[in-house]
């Protein structure tokens, strides 16, 4: 389960394409992460959890 921030969405899609999985689903959260406070990280984590849950269970 790969998590990236929105500016890196094109990067993730490109690397997935080159590695042979062009439709690989990944989790997208708001940028940045590095300078976030703990409450901000928790908010992003909740967003990531919802997307991750759906991807992991999707056939």
């Amino acid at each position, binding site marked *: 389960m790969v998590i990236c921030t929105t500016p890196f969405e094109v*990067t993730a899609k490109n690397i997935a394409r080159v*590695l042979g999985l062009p439709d690989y689903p990944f989790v997208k959260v708001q940028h940045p992460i590095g300078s976030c406070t703990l409450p901000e990280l928790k908010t992003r984590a909740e967003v990531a959890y919802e997307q991750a849950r759906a991807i992991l269970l999707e056939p």
Partner: protein
Amino acid sequence: MAAVAPRIHDVPDDVLAAIDFCYEQGWTDGLPVVPPEVGRVKAMLAADARPAETVIAHHPATGLDLSLHAAAVNAVMAGCLPAHFPVLVAAYEAMNRPEFNFHGSTASTGGSAPLIVVSGPITDEIGMNADVNLFGPGNRANAAIGRAVRLILRNVFQMLPGISDKSTQGNPGKYSFCIAERSRGNPWPLLCEAQGYPQGTSSVTAFAGGGFCNVENHGGNTPEQILGSVADAMANYGCITLGQSVVILAPEHMRILADAGWTREQAQDCLFTLAKRSVEGMKSVGKFRDREYDRQHDDKAHGLVEAGFVHRGLGPSDILITMGGGDAGGHSCFIPSWSRGRSSLMQHAAITPSPTPSPQS
């Protein structure tokens, strides 16, 4: 898995249409390229004795390989002559080492470009510029070799600006960043000699260059004054990290060191000692990291490391220093490494001469 055959595109027999075709395919850096016509590519390949499918670099992130053939195609596009090809090949042999990490330095928001420093007799043999306007335009070898390095990153390894090259602001060196080390008037052993290569062997040094800082000093007349101004540039808050450095001294500045009998090692020691910021200063701008300080000050710390200060690099050998540029002007330069945490270290490789005399035009 065996490589597939190189693809050939049939285009109208019109150079301008071929240039437009290259643009349409997304093969350029924004400037027109020389269309990689089959005959030109074969002539370029003749500058290396190995089979065209020989792999000279591998990109761990994508699994893509760089063959001599693909290098030759991009070399033609960049404007290289066959005589330039051995330098390009050596550059990638250096960049291919895991310690250089060409993926990280290219993909990063940090915006670095590989600086290619060519040292030794080949610089004169192929007409490189080590003199006036060293980092600027006007010399085919410097411009084309540097550009070929960039086109390979783009076309072979798919390091596409904005997509897989996420540089926040970029860097003009991402068009071309290749110089020759100046031998004329250089009081120190050339890099190729200092790197341990046999006499007569030229070398390429690859360094993930994060930018270019001009260091002007027309009033200083001692080594300490000249190097003090360089060290200040190296320690500016925007640049100071544990990363390596390249310093190219102008001949005017080098003459001051040479007249005082300073060796390269003395200059490196001086720069490392002076290029530092206090811990309080680093904290004041939010750049102090315990982990980095501890690494520089642990039980393997270099003898010149001073408590309470963050130096640039881990030791004097992290500073590549040599001479380049025109005879007039007190303008040297400092180029910081992209790598703050030392995930890219400069690498060098010997240049293997062409097996047959290559045409110069």
